[in-house]
């Protein structure tokens, strides 16, 4: 059920917040041992907060559509008085004394925090032995939910909670959203505060919502976006009514298909077929489709590696020296390697980013949004191993998983992933929609229009039924 529906029921008092939170806690209790979506569950605090919300709503004092709605956040966001691990043993005892801005804003909107979600360690790629359990994809427990916001996507897909927050520096919201069949958005750079987000401290970190529908994400983005003096990158751009944009039609919108993403041999047939069907649906809605070209966009992950990886290595340098054994082998080796990327490569990579930003801006003059598959394929099996060759390292570091998402982390444009179909293995894949800076409303307009005429977001993983019957 969507946040809007739940909110209407709360207002009508046909259901209580305590009832909703109890249902979430029961589902978490039933499924989390297999999914490993949650690291921490705040059952008592959530039930207390829900009781207060019920009292307030009962007095006619409903603060907005999130009041009384359960949510959960990636364990990368500070939560006052609640352990925040960043998915790592390094922070197994870290209890912040303040909330991240996005958490505080959700709480101020009346949402009920039920827990902290599992993630790839430090938000830094595959983990051989995840400290808080192997995150699993609800559609197939042998497969990864993607990452690094792994639990943020799987918890929504498995109906453990209606909405979550994740963080994205190269695709870490959009990739797991696509692989788990839910909606995930990375807003424009600077539109959502990074204060209290344990990212790399670099350009690319971006917090954002995940949910089952574009409307749910619009509601959450409306609550968390906007200027924050605690984040030096924060923008003063206005926060329009994103939910209103969801009721607009995509009729007449100009949609650009990025040719380079479709020409890559990394794009698997299942993702290609779903993407082409999505284009047909958008055309049916009255949008015009045209092909656009952004040369060299495939090099974005290379530029991102040169810029972002050394920043991460610098961020964790002290821990790499003093506590390397407390970091899983794969992120540890990645951080060691990142320490050796020469600073002399950086200026050229920064120039590339500026060029790419210019190209994307120019392309978005002739179309309203760009579209692409979010990922090159569906969720792969969970098979993290040590790197055994340069070619394998090449695939791991620069490989296709971020091909379509990292360019827009570099350029700072907003991007959303919505479910757009299934592969022959019955695994979900996503459609990425990218817009002009601070025009998240256009993304919601297209995404919500698409979801009104498709059913992909209404399908729940069969796995959950099996889990609950197990």
């Amino acid at each position, binding site marked *: 059920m969507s946040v809007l529906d739940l909110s209407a029921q709360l207002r009508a008092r046909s259901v209580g917040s305590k009832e909703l939170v109890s249902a979430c806690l029961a589902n978490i209790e039933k499924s989390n041992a297999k999914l490993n979506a949650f690291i921490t569950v705040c059952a008592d605090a959530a039930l207390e907060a829900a009781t207060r919300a019920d009292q307030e709503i009962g007095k006619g004092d409903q603060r907005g559509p999130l009041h009384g709605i359960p949510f959960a956040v990636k364990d990368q966001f500070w939560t006052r008085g609640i352990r925040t691990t960043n998915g790592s043993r390094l922070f197994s005892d870290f209890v912040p004394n303040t909330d991240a801005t996005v958490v505080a804003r959700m709480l101020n909107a009346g949402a009920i925090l039920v827990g902290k979600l599992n993630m790839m360690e430090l938000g830094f790629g595959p983990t051989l032995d995840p400290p808080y359990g192997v995150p699993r994809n609800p559609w197939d427990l042998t497969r990864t939910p993607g990452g690094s916001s792994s639990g943020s996507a799987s918890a929504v897909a498995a109906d453990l909670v209606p909405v979550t927050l994740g963080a994205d520096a190269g695709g870490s919201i959009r990739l797991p959203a696509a692989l788990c069949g839910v909606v995930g958005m990375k807003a424009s750079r600077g539109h959502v505060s990074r204060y209290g987000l344990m990212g790399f401290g670099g350009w690319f970190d971006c917090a954002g919502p995940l949910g089952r529908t574009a409307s749910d994400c619009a509601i959450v983005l409306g609550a968390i976006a906007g200027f924050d003096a605690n984040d030096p990158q924060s923008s003063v751009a206005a926060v329009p009514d994103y939910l209103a944009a969801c009721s607009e039609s995509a009729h007449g919108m100009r949609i650009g298909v990025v040719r380079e993403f479709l020409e890559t041999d990394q794009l698997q047939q299942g993702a290609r077929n779903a993407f082409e069907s999505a284009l047909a649906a958008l055309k049916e809605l009255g949008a015009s489709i045209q092909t656009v070209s952004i040369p*060299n966009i495939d090099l974005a992950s290379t530029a991102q590696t040169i810029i972002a990886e050394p920043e991460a290595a610098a961020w964790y340098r002290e821990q790499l020296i003093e506590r390397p054994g407390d970091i899983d082998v794969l992120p*540890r080796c990645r951080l*060691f*390697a990142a320490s*050796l990327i020469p600073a002399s490569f950086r200026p050229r990579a920064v120039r590339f980013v500026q*060029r790419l930003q210019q190209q994307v801006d120019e392309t978005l003059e002739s179309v309203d949004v760009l579209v692409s598959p979010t990922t090159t394929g569906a969720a792969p099996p969970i098979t993290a191993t040590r*790197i055994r060759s340069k070619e394998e*390292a*090449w695939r791991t570091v*620069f490989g296709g998983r971020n091909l379509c998402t990292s360019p827009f982390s570099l350029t700072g444009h907003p991007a959303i992933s919505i479910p757009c179909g299934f592969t022959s293995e019955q695994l979900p894949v996503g459609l990425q929609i990218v817009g002009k800076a601070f025009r998240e409303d256009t993304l919601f307009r297209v995404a919500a229009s698409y979801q009104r005429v498709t059913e992909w977001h209404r399908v729940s993983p069969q796995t959950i039924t099996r889990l609950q019957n197990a």
Partner: protein
Amino acid sequence: MPDLTLDQVRDALAALGLRPDEDDLADVAFRVNATLERVRDLDRVDLDEAYFLSDKDLKNE
């Protein structure tokens, strides 16, 4: 550019105060050499047209 050897990777990390164990070292070397190889792809892009304050702009001021 030839690949860095394990000894070179170990020495470079040691200069930064980082001491990976032998099991990590091969993994790290593969990653470093893959990265150094791939960054050359950026050379194929003509970045002189990039929209930014270039060296040329600075000289003109």
